[in-house]
């Protein structure tokens, strides 16, 4: 079975470490916050200028001046700080964020990522994604392995306009966890009940499969 969105978030959360400053993108990455292991403290960075994002507010706590990068109303946790966009991207570009999790349309064997535009169809803008992929050493991309029609999104070369080049090393899809190195995807784990053959069939880019590919456990 392919992973659910929640399982993907849960799997990514296993990469968190105590004391990490983490930037979570919109969508599945946002859900990672729900799976921070007990006893571990992480600080969430929101690129509009908040470090230490807390849960959504209760109805009575809603404050128009306190939002996250997805424009949702949020709260600040104890130990939080707020700052300008300039400061926020100094943290990001300067490599001070320990882990960045973001979505993508496509990735390729060179570590390129496309996530912000489908020419002629969808133009929403890159927001902070280009700065995030350029500034972070430690990035996990969460995405669907293939389109609904079965077309692979793990490619030899991205077909869409890039968000960043040679910057992605780890990808979690609904089918597999892969690492990118030496011009290939390296299969590290597979979703429960998903065969190596299915992953191979849905991976257009060069895929290296070791003798043993453990199943993820939930």
């Amino acid at each position: 079975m392919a992973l659910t969105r929640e399982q993907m978030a849960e799997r990514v959360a296993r990469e968190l470490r105590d004391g990490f400053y983490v930037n979570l993108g919109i969508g599945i990455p946002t859900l990672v916050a729900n799976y921070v292991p007990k006893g571990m403290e992480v600080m969430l960075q929101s690129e509009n200028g908040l470090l230490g994002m807390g849960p959504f507010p209760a109805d009575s706590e809603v404050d128009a001046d306190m939002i996250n990068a997805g424009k949702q109303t949020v709260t600040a946790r104890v130990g939080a700080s707020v700052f300008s966009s300039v400061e926020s991207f100094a943290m990001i570009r300067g490599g001070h964020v320990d882990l960045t999790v973001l979505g993508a349309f496509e990735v390729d064997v060179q570590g390129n990522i496309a996530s912000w535009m489908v020419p002629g169809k969808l133009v929403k803008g890159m927001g902070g994604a280009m700065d995030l992929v350029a500034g972070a050493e430690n990035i996990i991309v969460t995405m669907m392995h293939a389109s609904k029609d079965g077309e692979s999104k793990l490619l030899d070369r991205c077909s869409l306009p890039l968000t960043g080049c040679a910057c992605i090393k780890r990808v979690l899809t609904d089918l597999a966890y892969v690492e990118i190195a030496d011009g290939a995807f390296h299969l590290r784990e597979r979703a429960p009940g998903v065969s190596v053959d299915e992953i191979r069939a849905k991976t257009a880019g060069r895929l290296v499969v070791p003798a043993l590919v453990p199943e993820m456990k939930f």
Partner: protein
Amino acid sequence: MAGFDKRVDSYEAALAGLTDNMTVIAGGFGLCGIPENLIAQIRRLGVKGLTVVSNNCGVDDFGLGVLLKDRQIRKMIASYVGENAEFERQLLSGELEVELTPQGTLAEKIRAGGAGIPAFFTATGYGTPVGENKEVREFNGRRYILEQSITADFAIVKGWKADWYGNVVYRHTAQNFNPAAATAGRITVVEVEEIVPPGQLEPSQIHTPGIYVDRLIQGRFEKRIEKRTTRAA
């Protein structure tokens, strides 16, 4: 004191001198911390051909979106336009010129502009459409693109509190692009929720020192929320 009293008594006075084809930098992120009354005044003025620099472009009927609807904007420099259907329509049809700019690069362009730095190198956007036709330099084995800074005829800013001297404090994440914007206007206009007498604000808590501020006005704000999200009680 008089020379440092930045207060003006009307929105007409706040934006006096704003004319067609000027460049305006606006603070705000989404609808959070936007100078909503100054934007409404630009609409009333009816000036056309504006170049607007702002992270987003409001929504269809609020914030900068109203200037878009009235076709007052010729060119938009922004990082994210996802919430605005009219923006996407004008962009795809070619009616609106758009320079999509990575958010951190946009912030730094404005910061640099206000700080007298004409350009800077950043890794952001290298090897992507953003880096096309830009100078590339290698530092310590990594490639960077040259980005030029931004200044504007007017900067419009939303603060929380200010004193008569134009020292401004922002509240929570309504800060965002506002302090950078305040530095980069030939004329910087700040609207706040409350103007207090000098001496009431703690000097070490000031976000924007008054030297950057030319005009100051107190307004009433709707503070519309784009995505009201709550947790179960």
